[in-house]
């Protein structure tokens, strides 16, 4: 086993059986993956493809039908490994009669943290996940997103080296999703290893270093996101301070033909809805009291905001897609 491999599965297989031991469903078939120290690893796949099953096998919540899983070099059923793991379940299943502070205190006790450390850690995490105002309310009153946040705080109480997040962005608004993704990147910056399951591809694309794609319990693709997503047959080129004109198009086509290529498309890039949404929310914060009135233009897109927004593309930027002729 390589030294920096933190999670390893060997032919990991899970067949769900019913009470009488009859086979019902093969949820995972002979999975072989390795997850390395310090990376963000994405488990991808459509609903029911076996992502959650994999995670539960790694945590010892399920026992493999065949094969083995090792975490920190110990078998998955070993309790000791949990000292260094943080787990956010698919839905935050926490005790609904506790409030945020009590929840964190309780989980802190399970890690044998001394009282003073539990208190400071809880305050710090509550602030981090933005629940300061709601920290005294019982969890049963929390919204889905708030539960997801306290769930994350709970997963970080022991300052874990490996954080396993099952659908971390589900239930979060785009702002929350962005916050979550930033947080994951922060964790990576701290040298932590993160495993996340998701079927929200843009999330995975934004934060994951490496991914595995599952379908029907079988591994379909596995590797670095960059490599997997690169389309080697195409070249993309972005330029700014240009006017889109027939002249330009003609010049470019000629230039490309000289190099043996072909121009596919030329035009303004569209932003993602996420970016657009984020910008709108930012703007509304900057101009309190403004709202959308029917019949009027949607919120004006002022120069100032555009420039200050680093994620959004600058006006006038255009994208060119070039296809290799060969």
């Amino acid at each position, binding site marked *: 086993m390589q030294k920096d491999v933190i999670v390893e599965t060997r032919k990991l297989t899970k067949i*769900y*059986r*019913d*009470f009488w031991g009859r086979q*019902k469903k093969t949820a995972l078939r002979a999975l072989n993956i390795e997850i390395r120290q310090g990376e963000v690893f994405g488990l991808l796949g459509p609903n029911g493809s076996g992502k959650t099953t994999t995670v*539960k096998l790694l*945590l*010892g*919540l*399920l*026992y493999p039908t*065949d094969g*083995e899983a090792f975490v920190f070099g110990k*078998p998955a059923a070993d*309790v*000791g490994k*949990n*000292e260094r*793991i943080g*787990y956010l*379940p698919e*839905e935050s*299943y*926490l*005790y609904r*009669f*506790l409030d945020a502070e*009590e929840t964190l205190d*309780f*989980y802190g*006790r*399970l*890690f*044998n943290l001394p009282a003073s450390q539990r208190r400071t850690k809880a305050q710090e995490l509550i602030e981090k996940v933005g629940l300061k105002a709601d920290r005294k309310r*019982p969890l049963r009153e929390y919204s889905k997103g708030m539960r997801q946040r306290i*769930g994350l705080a*709970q997963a970080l109480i*022991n300052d874990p080296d490996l954080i396993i997040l099952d659908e971390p962005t589900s239930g979060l608004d785009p702002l929350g999703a962005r916050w979550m993704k930033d947080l994951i990147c922060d964790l990576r910056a701290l040298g932590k290893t993160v495993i996340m399951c998701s079927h929200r591809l843009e999330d995975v694309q934004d934060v994951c270093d490496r991914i595995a794609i599952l379908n029907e319990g079988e591994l379909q693709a596995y590797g670095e996101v960059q490599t997997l997503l690169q389309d080697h047959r195409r070249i993309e080129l972005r330029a700014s301070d240009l006017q889109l004109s027939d002249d330009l198009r003609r010049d470019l086509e000629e230039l490309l033909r000289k190099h043996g290529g072909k121009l596919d498309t030329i035009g303004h890039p569209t932003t993602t809805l996420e970016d657009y949404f984020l910008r709108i929310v930012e703007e509304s914060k900057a101009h309190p009291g403004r709202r959308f009135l029917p019949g009027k233009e949607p919120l004006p897109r002022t120069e100032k905001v555009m420039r200050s927004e680093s994620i959004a593309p600058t006006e006038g930027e255009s994208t060119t897609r070039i296809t290799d002729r060969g």
Partner: protein
Amino acid sequence: MFAVLTFDRDPVQYQDVPAQLFSWIQSAGGWAAFGVLVWLLAGYTRMRAEDRARIPVWQKRVFAASVGVSLLAYLIAGGAWLTQYVPRIKAETAIATYFFSLIIGGVGALAAAGLPFAVGLSSLRFRRIWALAKLSFKEAVRNRVLYGFSAILLVFLFGSWFIPYKPEYQVRSYVGVVYWMMKVLLLVTAIIVAAFSIPTDIRRQTIHTIVTKPVERFEIVLGRFFGFTALMTLVLLLMTSVSVIYVLRGVDPAAAEESLKAREPLYGTLHFENTGNKEKGTNVGREWDYRSYITAASPNQEPQYAVWDFAEAPSFLADRDSVRCEFAFDIYRTTKGFENRGVSCKFEFQTAHFNERDKDSYNADRSRWLSKGGLFSQKDLDDWLDGYRTRLTNLSLGPLELNERLDKKRLRLIAQPLPGDPPQYRLSDAAIEDELAEEYGYYVVPAKDITDYHTLYIDVPAGLFRNALQARAGAGARPLLQVRVSVTQQSATQYVGMAKYDLYWRLDDPKSGHEKAAFTLNFYKGAFGLWLRLCLVIGLAVALSTYLSGVISMLVAGMLYLGGGALDYIQSIAQGTAPGGGPMEALVRLANRQVALIPLEDSTAATLATSTDVVFRWFIRRVLDLIPDVDRYDLTSYVGEGFNIPWTQLVLDCGALSLYLLPWFVAAYYLLKWREIAGPT
């Protein structure tokens, strides 16, 4: 007053412990062997080679050795059992072999089954268990479980309406009603709360965030158990405190005077004389043969005696003025017409030093000294001392001791001189009785009226105990102290029924004035019995719920508890002593319309039925091991009748409960460990 404590079985004693421990080892060991066997067949064979390789070698060895020993012992036991069909082998040897090899087999099986459990215990951490216990506590409180307990208020508000007022019943009824209400409320709540906690945790998947922390799964079981137990303990303490105030204030002063106490009895052993059977008196045909009956002797017969032997008595009794002997007998009348007149009995108290021939001289002395009107001249005292000297010389005492006793007595007799000449000395009647009792080791109440089922008493001069506790010169093998009861001639034709526990000495001082305090403490001790039952159902329900669903756990725990209440009956079926035999035999009887007490006639059906019942009984006996003996924890009658609950009882009950729960917890340990928490439910 109706304060009679009857025992279905003898109160528990330390000397019963080894026998109970052995039987526990046999039955728990049997189950452990069964568990190990199932695991070997179904678990070990299916285990993957990697996992097998992960078990430490020393554990494998210890396990294999234990299993080997156990297997061998069980084989020997089986062989010994078969020898009952071999006529040449002595039965005693076979039985002893059978018994001991079952114990050794049990120990081996327990060691094998308990080994991984014991190893697992070492990784438990108190702080995590505490956190989980606190969580369970909070959960129950915040889910408003406690509101249900306000139902006890019903008793406090309306209790006096339906509790009979008669002073002789009042305390017993109050105590009974209050305990019953507490019992029902607490036990039902405890079973429900405990049975549903872990299954709900699993169903809601809240347990996922716990088992993915460094938590041993058994810590969850213990946490739940301790959390709910703590909660129920607090509720019980509160309820008991309110209840005891309610009882103390609620009962009428007359009833309080009668029954608010906690007698500490010193029991003896009972035998009968001149009834034809040492064990039993006459059977008067009452259906319940708890008591035996004696009656007055007809002219040419020896009088019948009920005799209580006391092998020992604590020395502090000798320091009192008098020691109270209490008794309550059953009267069986053969002639009508004297309903309000009691039956009269003669009570003789005698020590090991008492000489039967001195009876006449005792009676003569007694009437002589009592007739003095409390004033004694020097000559009277000298006469008395002379008589004493004569009897002492018969005892072959050393001269030193003889003189010492005489001097002591003289000093006591002249303790209260009266002024004047010639000198006179005052001696009260009680002091005279006391002196005589000490001198002779004898005290008699020639005729004491007995009323049916009423606790009566005789205050016996403590001198009797001073005599009894002297160095036992010449006492031989006689018991330290005897109480001999006979029915007097004037009550001929009446029968008086008595049982071992119907007569006793009061170890506590009835004149101490601490009776209410003693009652209060006793009330809490009685609540401790309820507390043990609470622990029992909580432990049982939590352990069951590691594998079964909430509803099923609740039902099974509830049924085991109720089965415990009917244990005696189930036991009689298992041992084949119930009239009418087992279920198959009963069926045959039903079909043929046969009476239960007549043996079945020989038919194939009958043989088949009775042998099916043998197998059935074997299964019942195994199931019996699972049923808790809940009645032993019910101490209500002690409190209600005003008898102190011995600490021995509480200590041994704790032990018995631990032994009962231990195998359940071990089973829970494995069940939860092997269970796929996120698996199909």
